Structures are given as structure tokens and as C-alpha cells.
């Protein structure tokens, strides 16, 4: 169980957080103009990388804020944590 540095609260146990999957998948602004395939790409397709992955996390049992996190899924090393709307760091 890892320790996550919530950008609003500081270090807390993983059990306080929930993971919201891959980050930086922006909801299309004009969904009606997309083909089935394009919409399916947004809706279903996720990378699920073994290695460095950009993820959304929510401090569900804390400040309830969503934020982004860069985690190596092969060893759970957390490389960075940053707020929604902030530019992703270069890893």
C-alpha cells in the first residue's frame, strides 16, 4: 500500500484514495460530430501500461479533490503528483 502526496492535504495512505484510470483523456467537446470509432476510442480505449503511467486519482476519504499522478505500474514508484489543469511533468 503506497503513500500518496495529495497536492491539497499532503502524505496520506493509499486507502484514502481511489484511482480514476488513465489521465489526460479529454472528453470531446463535440461528441455528436464524432464517428462511432472516434467516440469508442474516447469511451473504451485505455493504454494500461506496464511502466510509467499518467493517472487520475481522487482523495475520496479526504478533501475529495481529483488530481493527477505519474506512477510506474511495475514498481508503484510515484514520480509526480499535480493538480487538475496543471501541465503534466516530463518524466
Amino acid at each position, binding site marked *: *500500500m503506497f503513500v500518496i502526496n495529495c497536492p491539497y492535504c499532503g502524505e496520506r495512505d493509499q486507502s484514502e484514495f481511489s484511482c*480514476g484510470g488513465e489521465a489526460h483523456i479529454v*472528453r470531446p467537446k463535440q*461528441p*455528436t460530430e464524432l464517428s462511432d470509432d472516434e*467516440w*469508442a476510442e474516447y*469511451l473504451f480505449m485505455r493504454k494500461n501500461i506496464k511502466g510509467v503511467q499518467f493517472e487520475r486519482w*481522487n482523495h475520496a476519504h479526504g478533501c475529495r479533490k*481529483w488530481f493527477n499522478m505519474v506512477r510506474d505500474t511495475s514498481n508503484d514508484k510515484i514520480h509526480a503528483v499535480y493538480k487538475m489543469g496543471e501541465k503534466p511533468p516530463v518524466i
Partner: protein
Amino acid sequence: MTKYRINKTRFIDQTKTVSFTFDSKEYHGFEGDTLASALLSNGIHLVGRSFKYHRPRGIMSCGSEEPNAICQINDNTDFTEPNVRITEIELYEGLKASSQNCWPNLNFDIGGINNLISPFIPAGFYYKTFMWPKSFWKKIYEPLIRLSAGLGKSPTQPDPDIYDHKHEHCDVLVIGGGISGIISAKIAAKNNLKTILIDDKKILGGSTIYQNNKNFIIDNQKSNEWLMNEISELERLDNLIIKTRTSLAAFHSYNYLLAKENISDHLPLDKKNGGIRQRLWKIRADKVIVAAGAIERPLIFNNNDRPGIILANSVKKYLDFYGVSSGLNNIIFTNNDSAYETAVSLFEKGISVKIIDIRKKSSSNIVKDAEDLGIEIYWNSTVVNTFGYKKIKSIEIMNLSEDGSNVTGNKHKIQCDCLSISGGWTPMVHMHTQSGGKLDFREIDQVFVPSEKSENHINVGSCNGDFELEEIVKNTNNKVKKFLNINESVFDKISVSCSKELEKKNIWLLPNTISEGKTKSFIDFQNDSTAKDIKLALREGFKSIEHVKRYTTTGMATDQGKLSNMHALGIIADTAGVKMGTLGTTTFRPPFTPLTFGAIVGRSVGKFFDVLRKTSIHEWHVQNNAKFENVGQWKRPWYYPINNENLHDAVQRESKTARDSAGILDASTLGKIDIQGSDASEFLNRVYTNAWSKLGIGKCRYGLMLNEDGMVYDDGVTTRLDENHYLMTTTTGGAANVLSKLEDYLQTEWRELDVYLTSVTDHYSTASICGPNSKKILKKLFPNKDFSDEAFPHMSYQDAIIDKIECRIMRISFTGELSYEINIESKYGRSLWENCIKAGEEYKITPYGTETMHLLRAEKGFIIVGQDTDGTMTPIDLQMDWIVSKKKYDFIGKRSLYRSDTIKEDRKQLVGLLTDDPNEILEEGAQIVSELDKKPVKMIGHVTSSYFSPNLNKSIALAVVKGGKKMKGQKLFVPMENKNINVTVSDFIFLDKENKRINA
């Protein structure tokens, strides 16, 4: 003293006798004994039968690696526990232990027949034999396997013990209280670091605490004496917490560790006093030092499993720690020097001992000592067979060929009553690998050692592959100093000397004259897998160690292969002709030793299992005989039986009264979300399928919420309280998830919206009054209010005051009846409710529960999200096209509603079902078919809600059926176990299609 208790030690109080029973026979031991040492002191070796062949088995070790000696304790009591390792049970007065896996008893076991037919039970036997014919599985194979499988008996009563969980944080956690752990803990604690030292034994000191051999000297003292002083100094250190009887269960990432502390397992039943039995520590440590030690390896030769064959260092511990000799006529069979310590110890106590060594020579100090003492040593020799059924009686030995691959010369028979074996040592790398660490293979002594990459944990002592006292002390000191950034330690200048092993030799499977197929060379003693089984698996084409392990079940017993894994790997490598280091190892998974379920769940049992939520009206429901059902964490009234009514009768009465006169429902559990902000209307437009911009202040609207995939997610009525202020209701079970989902969109996708969400579910209590007389009841409650349809129309809300308390009245309907909902601050919920009941008395108002609510909704074809939907239903599938706005540019899930999959016409769609026999009630969940004869029968749907409607006097059901929209009037079948029920597809609105009752 018994015949075998030949030595007095400081660890056993021989003035305090403890009596216990094993298989109902009474024995005596002393305070400080384990069950194993006490049994051995009584000459008992045979303690169990093996799993597959039911071969007699004895105590083989002195610790958690024990594969054979497991027992059931306190059988036939609430406290009974199976599969407890005899070597780890601290003896207490009145302990009752019994052997497992034997019938009718340990000495005569019917299952022993498996041993005779063992040529027919090869590796993968179960997989191969019970495959065919299929019909035999349920009636013949499974009962047979169940009868003979399993170890011990599960308790039949709830566990009366209390278990606890506790969080702990520290700078340094040291795992293992042997010499390297003690050195580490002292260095850390003396440098002002908050340190915790845990050890699974009662007494610290590991194997050094009974190392009284004169070759092992620290600062001019025997190593055990030196360590004894160190331990008493440790106890005086302020920032060191020592936890004995505490074993590490798991080492997770980020230095999060679980350790189980035994608090009362060593106490007699009558002294436990209802206290805590075990505590699970959840430790977050800044730094972790693993000093877990090493396990002695057995040797693999024919019939190496008889009672009386014990690991050599365990024989030494029984002798020098417990004062018990495992035999009076000992043979030691070894490939290394450490077993000579056992030999010398035995000899010095006047016990007969001989040594068989597979090496050609050894020139170390300890071997010289043995030779000087006159102990007979057979060099370059191996054991080829053993004899004695319930206890070893003799062995046969032969010489090894030059390269060790064969035996030569004549067999030589030697009598004995105990055979100590030692195949070298295996570092306990389990903790290291659990934390994610990798291993390196060290060729010289054939061991896997930690490959250290982490900055936050290290391994010291023999678990790191340091086996000799001098390197243990020096390396531990240096490594810990570096790890903790410390310049000097009290151990920098101590002098250490020890016997050093110079000659090493290892043979994973010792050679024999008999062909392999006819030998029983056990590798995994608990699961009865042999060298032959592993070779067979390789011949059958298994290559990966993980596959061989599962096929042969090697390493898969309760001991997780602590003694067997290395030999399995070694034999695979030898047979396949590859280097052992290239094979990798199997994965070591937590827990290191089995955990009780009690320790895992801790206090979260009974009423603490989950949070229980009650409405402010709950006590009234209880007093009025409500039966409750769980909806999420909520307790909701299910129905209110009068006299001896059953569920059906009560629901029929409640439903009839609600439609004929008046009914009242506690709707407080519905989720309530307060929505405010200048973009609140726009926000609702985006989250619901219908349009919200034009909803007037004071008006209410039903909304349907989808997932982005277009499937129905939740529903409820939202009220516009003010220009920028709404109150949303959600389903009871969906409240928390809906709030999270909405917050997610606001924080991530729609950060530009000015909207604030607050959960107010618990802030308000809700009484929902329905029925043709509801208006009259409201009028009585609020005499000054105009309830005419013009002044207070359907789907609108007004503020009101009752008993000087402000409340909100919404004219909205759950049931299709004329209805009002009154929301009031929770603390006034009960009084509001009682007022409603009083005002409704003259109309025979009936409180009704969730069952009646569902029935009333089903009559009207109102869906229940989660009952009539299951995450695969679009609003179109539900025939709710009317609620999906065509004009809105976008809302959550809109685009998915015309994906190729969601527009298919043969999707499951909501329909009504009427049974041909109006008294026949369908079962919810029952499958629906259109043809009965054609096989395989094609399932085309299932029943989602089904009731007998008292208002229509017939059975009604909602169902989802493939292409159901176009099937109205069609005959279908609901096949049940004993009959087929004929049904007709109907409209799903069964009652008041014209919605007249809502304004009645």
C-alpha cells in the same frame, strides 16, 4: 526428568510441570516448552500422517518451516484451530492437541493404503484421473476427494476470541531478533531513531542464543553469553519497542508491513479472560532492516520422511535450548560443517553420535573438534535407505562415486533412533521479495540472495547470505551504519572468531542403487511430492517452475514450500541441464505464515462489519413492528405486518390501502444533493437526459442520468428552489456514487462551471404521503395552505411551517397516486411522521415499506434503477424515449445512444408480462424463452420485477426481453424446475395509463 530430557537449560523451568494431552493421552512437559519439545521429551516422534500417502510423519524442525508436525488444538471446543504447527505452540496447562489427517487413528490409519498403491498416484493424478467420464464427477469423484482431502477440521461455532488491529509508525523496523537483528536494533535505537524490533519467538536471540560451542567467540565470550548480555542491554533502551511472539505476515511496497502479535495463545483457556487473542500491527516504517535468518535444508534421499528424521540444527535447539535429546543413538547426515555443532553438543552430553558426510573431507575447526573427540565420521558417503515404520530404526549407507552422481561399493547398515539431516542453509528472502525485491543466485553455496536496489530496506545476517558469525557481525554493523547514515557504533571494535567452512558440496538429489521410479525421495513433505514426481512433470513437457509447482503441488501446502522450493528448483535444473540461477524462483506471496481469519478481520465483525444507517424515524418503525431490509448501508422498513401477517399478506393490504385511501413511506434514505451556483441549470442540462433551463422556480422535474456509455445510471426528482439553487434526489443506493461522479465532472471536465455540490441526505427527513385522501391529510396538517390543483399543482414545491418548524412540501409521486412529500430537518423527522400518522388516522393511513413501494411502482411501470436496470439498459431499451431530449446538443451519454451497438433492435427491452393463470406469480430473475422444444434452449430475457397486484387482482411482471418492444401480445414461456409457465407480453403500464390518479 524423562529419559530424553537430559539437559538443564536456562530457558526451561524444570520446577514447573505442565500437563497436556496429545490424542487424548496425558503427558507432562515444563514451562518454556513448545508442544514439540514436550512431545520429544516423552519420546514421541510420530505426530501425523502425510497428506497423500498417509505415511507416518514426525517432528522435523523447530520453527515455522515445519511441514509435518501440524495438529488440531482444543478440538470440540469453540476455540479449536486446525493446522497449527506443533513446533510453534507454546505449552500451557490443559492444552489439548490431536493429530490430523488420520482415520481411525494415528497408529492405524486406513488411508495408509494410499502408500501401497502409490505407484498409481503419480504427479497430476487428480488432473488425469478425474477428468472422465464427466457424469462421475458430481456423485463419485467429488465426494471421494472431499472425504480424503483437507487438513484438520474447521470450527463449527463462531470464533469467541477478540482480535485487534493497530497502526504503528516508526523510523526503523527490524524484522527478526537473532544476532544481526539485535545488532541492528541497538545501532538504530542508540542513534535516537524510534525503532521496533519484532520476533516470532517468545525469547530473542535466534539460533545464537543457544550457540555454546567454544569455536564461536565474541569479545572473549561464548557467543550465546555475549548475546545474552546484549539482550538485557536492549531492554534498557528508551526508543526501542521490542515485540516478541510477533511474526511478520506481509511486506508491502512503501514499507507498509503487517505483523501478527500473539497475545494470549500461550495462555491456558481459563486464563485468557476474554482479552484480545491476536493483534495485527499495520506498520509504516521509514526504514526496514530484514534480519529474518535462514532455514536449514533437508537432504533428498530414499525414504527421507520417517519419524525421527529431523533437521540437524533443530536437534541442537531441542538439546541446548529445551534440554531434550531427540534420540539416544544419533546419526548425523550432512553436506556441511554446521551439523558438526549438533554432533559435538550431543557428544558432550554423553549421547551416542555418528556422522555421515557427502564431502571427502573438511578441515575446519569444528570438524577437527569432532574428530578429536573421537566421533566416527563416514566421509564421501550417502544414505540410500532408511528403515522403521513409525520411527526410524536403521539406515543403509554407501560410498559416493568420484563425481557424486552415483553410489559405489557395498551397502552398510547402521542402527539409530534419530537421523539428523543438514543440506546447508537457505536465506529467508521471502520478505525481500514480497516488498518487490529481486534475487541473485550465488553459485558457491547454491543460494538465492537479495539483490538490493531499494533505498528504504536492507537485508542483514543469514537472510542476506552471511552464514558465518564473523561476517554476520561485521557486515551487519557496517551495512546498518551506512543505511542509517551513522559514523560510529558500539560494534566497531568487537572481536569475533568462529569456525570457517572451507569445503562445500551440494547434491540436490542423492544417488541410489534403486531405480528412481521405485524410490520415495520426498521434497515437499506436507504435500507428499517426490523427486520422481518432478522428473515426471518435466518428462511430460512442463518447463516453467510455476507450472511444475502447480502440477506436482510442490510448495503449495500450508508451509508454502519453505523446505522444498530450493530442491525442486535444483532437481529441475539438474534434470533439464540448465543453470539454477537462470530458472528464476516461484513467487513468495504473503502471508509468510498462515494468518487466522480473526486477525485479518480484527474488530470488523458483527455489528462492526459495516456502517449502519438509520433514519430519524427508525425507532417508530421498530415500535410499529416493521420488518427491515438492507439497502446499501441503510436499514429500510420492508413491510409492517399486523398480527401474524406474512410478507405477501402485509404487502397486499398496504398496497390496497395506499391506492384506496392513503399510505405513508419513510423516504429519508433517498440521496439528496444540494446544487448551487450561477451555472447550476447548465450543469443539470449536461448531467440529465432531459432539458432543465426552462424549469420554473418552485417546480420539480424527474430526471434520468446516464453513464457516458449511454446506460441508465440513476434517476430522481430535482426541485428548483431558487434561481441558482436546486435540490437533487437520487436513489438510496446510488447517492454516494452519483455525488462522486458529478464532482468528477465538475473538477475535471467542466472546470469552467460555477457549481457547488453538497450532500444533504442526512440533513432532511422525508415523509411521503400518497393516495386519494392524501390531500385531505395535508390540509389537516397545514390548515392555512391552499392545496387546490391551481394553487399547488403536481410537480411543484412550496415552503410551509408545521409546529413552528420550517419544511418543504413537494407534490411529486413515487407511485402514480396523488402524493406529497414533506422534507424537514432530520431532528424533527419523527415528530413530523407522527403528526402525519395522527392526521391520517381517520383515513386509515397505512405505513408501507419498500416491498409495497416496488409493487406500486411496478403497477405503473415505473422502473427501479438497479432492479429493472443492470447497467446495460439505455433509456430507449426502457421505452423511455420521452425523457431523452432531442434538442439538447450534448449530455452525459448522448453520443452513445446511437452507437451501432445501442441502436440494435434485438437489444433486451423492457416489457410487461402477464401470466396466463392470473394467480401464478413469476420468480424475479427467471429466464424467458420463446421456444421449448429446440435445444439448446435460447434465453431471450429475464423477469426483473414480479408481484401479485391487489389493485388489479392479478399477477403482473416487468421483464427485459430481446426485441421485446415489438412483441406485444406474443406468447412466451418461463421455464421453471418443474413446469413451464405460459406468459403473454403486454404493455408495461398495468394501471391508470391515463395518469388520472395523480390529480384525483
